[in-house]
């Protein structure tokens, strides 16, 4: 009898333990914040994998200094939206997250707090760069200015200029599409003599690489069209007026490349970066953020240059590099008051303290739009190239890809470009994806 009771008790004990363990596992997210909930805590979901570790270190320093808990998570490349979507549904949602511009903000507007009283907004040099909601509330503040263009290897380019049949003999003459075409084709024709595999590194169309063409390169014809038509904001439709230029530059990329066009679909960002970093290609389309990836290899820092992307538009000699921001901070309005305040304080510390400013500028290599950062300018050669173009009176090309109607639009364009490149599709399909796709996607998002 006693034996049987013992067995029952033991069994009940096991079952209860199993049940409570299971339930505790489900609720641990909510019950954690009891201790330090009073002063609030910060959870930053970071978009830029290239500075993931630096953010974690910076957060740890802040915690050491103030005792406020700061967690930083970084989504893997290309999975930010996915991660954000699942993180935001949790009880411990990010208190700070990122959007990539007005279109990105539209998706998350319901979660964005009004930050017009925040430190980061008050320190903006130009407050018009912040994104606002319909009622004028400030919802998102950009924290990094970036620049992209065609990165080139000065040493290899000089080798080409020294060739007897070079039509262009100085980087100063290389300021329009025809000059670029002549140089690229010249390099391709003399690639053995110059010791390279091609003029351009591979225009890869793997998901890790194709954003350079469906987003950044597509921005150039958009920029010229918007400039010609005086478009500001997000238009409902676009024209194909500058798409011939888009085709020209894209043809240049794929015809004078290290890579056969039929192999483009499998080429990754790493392939393209390493081809340039190892001196196998002279040109490489990318931006200031690529500095960390290409430096320290075959190309010396003083040989790294960046020039605007030319497509044969009128007046492009006077244009500079494409500069803008795709990184906006948004504070989660659904987070508790204490957490929102803690997040605001953390960001204030990031842009005003010596540690924060030093990390932003020198470790992460960011150019920021805040007035507190004037003494902190990075020594990234691509950032310096941008400063030189600005100093020479060139007009920076704006980032209009933040108004592209949807990810779907970009993806369809990217796939049409790939089909065109590997000759399984035509340029007409690219134009359809660009022009008709814009109208359709705009309608879907705003209709």
């Amino acid at each position, binding site marked *: 009898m006693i034996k049987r009771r013992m067995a029952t008790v033991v069994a009940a004990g096991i079952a209860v333990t199993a049940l409570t363990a299971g339930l505790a596992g489900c609720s641990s997210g909510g019950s954690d914040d009891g201790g330090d909930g009073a002063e609030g805590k910060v959870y930053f979901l970071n978009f830029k994998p290239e500075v993931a570790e630096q953010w974690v270190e910076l957060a740890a320093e802040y915690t050491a200094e103030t005792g406020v808990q700061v967690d930083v998570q970084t989504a893997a490349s290309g999975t930010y939206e996915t991660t954000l979507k699942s993180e935001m549904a949790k009880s411990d949602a990010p208190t700070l997250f990122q959007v990539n511009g007005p279109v990105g903000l*539209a998706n998350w507007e319901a979660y964005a707090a009004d930050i017009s009283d925040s430190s980061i907004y008050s320190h903006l040099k130009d407050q018009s760069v912040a994104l606002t909601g319909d009622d004028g509330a400030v919802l998102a503040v950009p924290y990094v200015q970036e620049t992209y263009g065609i990165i080139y290897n000065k040493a290899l380019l000089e080798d080409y200029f020294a060739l007897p049949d070079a039509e262009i003999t100085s980087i100063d003459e290389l300021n329009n599409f025809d000059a670029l075409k002549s140089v690229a084709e010249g390099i391709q024709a003399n690639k053995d003599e110059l010791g390279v595999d091609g003029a351009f590194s591979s225009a890869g169309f793997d998901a890790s690489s194709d954003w350079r063409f469906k987003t950044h390169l597509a921005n150039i014809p958009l920029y010229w069209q918007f400039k010609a038509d005086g478009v500001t904001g997000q238009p409902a439709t676009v024209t194909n007026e500058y798409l011939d230029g888009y085709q020209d530059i894209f043809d240049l990329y794929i015809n004078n490349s290290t890579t056969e066009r039929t192999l483009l679909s499998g080429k990754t960002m790493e392939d393209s970066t390493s081809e340039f970093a190892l001196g196998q290609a002279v040109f490489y389309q990318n931006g200031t953020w690529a500095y960390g990836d290409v430096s320290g290899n075959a190309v010396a820092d003083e040989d790294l240059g960046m020039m605007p992307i030319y497509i044969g538009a009128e007046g492009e000699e006077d244009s500079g590099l494409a500069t803008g921001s795709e990184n906006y901070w948004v504070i989660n309005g659904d987070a508790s008051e204490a957490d929102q305040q803690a997040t605001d304080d953390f960001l204030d510390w990031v842009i005003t303290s010596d540690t924060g400013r030093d990390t932003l500028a020198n470790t992460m290599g960011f150019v920021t739009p805040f007035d507190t950062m004037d003494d902190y300018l990075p020594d990234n050669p691509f950032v310096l190239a941008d400063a030189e173009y600005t100093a020479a009176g060139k007009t920076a090309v704006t980032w209009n890809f933040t108004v592209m109607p949807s990810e779907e639009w970009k993806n369809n364009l990217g796939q049409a470009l790939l089909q065109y490149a590997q000759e399984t599709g035509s340029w007409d399909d690219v134009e359809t994806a660009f022009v008709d796709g814009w109208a359709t996607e705009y309608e*879907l998002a705003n209709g």
Partner: protein
Amino acid sequence: MKKSLRRWGWLFTGPVLAAFMIGFIVPFVLGVYLSFTEFRTVTKAEWVGFDNYIKMWGDDVFLHSLWYTAAFAIVTTILINVLAFIVAYLLVKTFRGKNIFRSVFFMPNLIGGIVLGYIWLLLLNGILGFWARSITYDESYGFWGMVILMCWQQIGYMMVIYIAGLQSVPTELLEAAEVDGANKRRTLFSVTIPLVMPAITVCTFLTITNGFKMFDQNLALTNGAPSRLSELLALNIFNTFYGRPGFEGVGQAKAVVFLIIVAGIALFQNWYARSKETAA
């Protein structure tokens, strides 16, 4: 015994039932509910009725992936079962190193789908490189790439089930067939196959549903490229849900339709195959 079961049974079924509720029933009901709503995160949803189901049929990529997946499931089901049966048929015979062969064939199952996908991506791209192509060059490359991967991974698993089935065929029946003068071929088709029908039922069920459900291998091998033409249903649903803001509900509706299709086919297959089973 019966009394104490009734009294204490809940202690043992309770945890499992709770886990089943949390892990299956609740997400399932919530999922069906969400397919009638518009939402960004699953905690904030707005009722929109059948809108998502109507939108879904206007999606050409979805319709393409529907028949692409069906074709994939049919091809892999046939290939895997035929090949797995042949391998099993060879490996029930007694010869040296039989167990080593069985282990080797089973081994691909121990590797996860994503890893397999990346390994096969390297292998296939390496081979296609001779013709200056890559696996994502064309949808048919991706299709056959995935078929090869799937076969490689699953033949060993199905082989194990077939071996068990073949070993349970009573030897006296085979001997009787031999005495009656039936040749090997006749014995195989008239005696062995009808008797291993239960194994065939199980294996075809597994391969059909695996074919429809395949996700990670697809993601790692082609990720839907080019032009989302090699996107199987599961990946299409994932991309709709996570890749298109504003289409989360549509993704959810696709998932419900997907569930109905797979459940329908699996039930039909099970009923049909069972009707062919014979007792020894």
